[in-house]
């Protein structure tokens, strides 16, 4: 069967940051302890005119800039997010129109907590493999929500990444993908609720660690690989501790995960988290590098990918869009007062 893989990629992270210590001080907590405990220094904050649609458009445009494909050749757009601006009305149509991919286009919005973006990659991969579309655009993006004072307030942030999937000029071949899914209610947001709920420590061992570990082992079994076969490994990163811990348990080293570990500097971008990690790896990857990716979505499931970087990455105009590292460095700090204003904690009729 023909190879299918990533043709191009793009990312977007809002410029504003708030320090975990600043949030902690508002709630009378010891910021240093919380920051060390979570492994998060600061998180990105979207401005009032940034949402999942604008982040997705920016990331998709960055992906298009790096290549010369015609947007009209994109046959499908799937956007994974848990903060789609509309409950009813797709984000994907906004993105499709903005990048000039409409109207001969399959579109749907995906939701599977933090793994909807990797699910979008799987769908696009399948459609390309089946010959139903030439290119597919898969996006994972979020402006995630956290109730004031909740533990999530220290991590919930904004960002996203887009990937064009196709058969020609593949820069990173998707060798294998699989998923591990159960009904595990560790984190959820009921319809019409502003903020999510979570099961505290239940989000750890029986949720994140169980699904990520099983999926990671399954993908390595499928690929016939071991941790040491990979140049880079990326895990979903709800905080700075979980991905480091699961990587260690599976036998990956810190050197393998550090390029894709962004949560200490931008927080948890939910559907964007593992995909921004992948974008960060693709920013520096060389032909022959092998990439391991395992996402995690509460509820719960993990998508695993075994990826090999090809010679074609040399031809991709990576410099035409800012790297993830550049976006992390290009920042401006805000205080909690500004944070409450722009995250609409302050509102009036």
């Amino acid at each position, binding site marked *: 069967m023909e190879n299918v893989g990533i043709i191009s990629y793009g990312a977007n992270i809002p410029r504003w940051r708030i320090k975990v210590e600043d949030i902690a001080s508002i709630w009378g907590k*010891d910021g240093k*302890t919380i920051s060390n405990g979570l492994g998060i220094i600061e998180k990105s904050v979207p401005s009032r005119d940034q949402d999942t649609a604008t982040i997705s458009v920016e990331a998709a445009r960055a992906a298009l800039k790096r290549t010369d494909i015609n947007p009209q050749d994109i046959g499908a757009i799937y956007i994974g997010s848990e903060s789609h601006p509309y409950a009813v009305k797709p984000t994907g149509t906004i993105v499709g129109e903005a990048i000039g991919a409409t109207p001969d286009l399959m579109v749907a919005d995906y939701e599977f907590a933090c793994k909807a973006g990797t699910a979008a990659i799987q769908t696009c991969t399948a459609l390309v493999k089946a010959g139903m579309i030439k290119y597919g655009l898969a996006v994972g993006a979020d402006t995630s929500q956290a109730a004031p004072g909740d533990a999530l307030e220290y991590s919930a942030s904004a960002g996203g990444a887009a990937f064009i999937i196709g058969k020609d000029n593949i820069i990173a071949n998707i060798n294998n993908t699989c998923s591990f899914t159960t009904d595990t209610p560790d984190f959820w947001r009921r319809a019409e609720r502003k903020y999510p709920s979570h*099961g*505290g*420590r*239940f989000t750890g*061992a*029986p949720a994140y660690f169980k699904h990520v570990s099983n999926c990671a082992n399954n993908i390595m079994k499928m690929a016939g690989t071991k941790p040491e076969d990979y140049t880079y490994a990326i895990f979903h990163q709800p905080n700075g501790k979980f991905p480091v811990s699961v990587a260690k348990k599976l036998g990956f080293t810190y050197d393998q995960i550090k390029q894709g570990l962004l949560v200490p500097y931008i927080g948890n971008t939910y559907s964007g988290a593992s995909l921004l990690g992948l974008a960060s790896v693709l920013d520096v990857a060389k032909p022959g590098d092998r990439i391991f990716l395992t996402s995690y979505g509460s509820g719960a499931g993990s998508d695993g990918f075994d990826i090999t970087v090809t010679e074609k990455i040399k031809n991709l105009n990576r410099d035409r869009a800012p790297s993830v590292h550049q976006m992390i460095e290009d920042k401006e700090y805000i205080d909690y007062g500004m944070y409450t204003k722009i995250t609409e904690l302050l509102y009036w009729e």
Partner: protein
Amino acid sequence: MRDVAVIGVGITKFGELWDKSFRQLIAEAGAKAILDSGIEGKDIDEMYVGSMSSGRFVGQEHVGALVADASGFSNLHIPSTRVEGACASSGMAVRQGYLSIASGINDIVVVGGMEKMNDVSGASATETLATAADQEWEAFFGATFPGLYAMIATRHMHEYGTTKEQLAQVAVKNHANGALNPYAQYQREITLEQAINATPVAYPLGLLDCSPVTDGAASIVLCAVEKAKKYRDNPVKIIGSSQGSDSLALHGRRDICTLDATVHAANMAYKQANLKPKDIEIAEVHDCFTIAEICAIEDLGFVKKGEGGKAIDNKITPRDGSLPVNTSGGLKAKGHPVGATGVAQIIEIVLQLQGRAEKRQIKNARIGLAHNVGGSGATSTVHIMEAM
């Protein structure tokens, strides 16, 4: 009155047991104890089970019958009774089992204890535990157990010069013991620095001064001594079983640094066993907070009132000390599934007296004591055991 012995023990792993239900836990502990004892279901005359708040933790009351049912004995119609006395629930259940055999009514009794605490949030668990305090005079005004024991600790520091470092030493010692216990929730050592600098909970208590929220179950089989050797060569005889009570609220006590319920229970148990505190070679005491272990060793007469803080520096309570305390890791490191704790403490003493405590074995221990407390000291049970 007849003598009573422990002829079998069974315990589950303690910890966050997400994949085991309440009934699975008690069935596992019960089955292990029954297998260990060599009895069969039809040999059981009666069952007692301790559970503090299964209704609030897992929405299940009526756990006496549930335990018999989950153990596969519903067709035997064994009388099975739940006993509740907050965190002393299963220490009290052991005493009920003991009394029923000592009285001559029963020959073989299975006693269990369990709690599954992680199915509710931390805040909800704290609130549920606070039901063991005086609702009208303590909980209603916002007192929680860390707060109550913090008051005991600050008073102890004021009266006797006990230090935060001495509190931390208790946590370090118990973690060092827990590191050797395969059933413990925390099988790892901690440093004095970590214990002193842990996240504050209620001054002077930090996170590492507090026992954790735990799922787990424990079970023992009791038998009249004259029949005990039929089942095993090395039963452990209960030579003292006692219980004391005190005011529910801390402010009703004669002295908040002394748990008079423990003093009373200890005196009764020593009298029954015809022993003195110095005769005890090993003890499991109720260290729900580090200050609680310090008070316990004083109230049990192992050291003078006010001297408890120095017990580690004075080489009394460590594993290589003159009277090793909480070799299991204690509530601090082994974990504290409140309803299971009393039985779990007895199991540790039995294993030690039988030479079955593996890496944490204390050489030649012959006489041990288990001390279980409910609330901030309104209930206390003491059991003294001797190798046979």
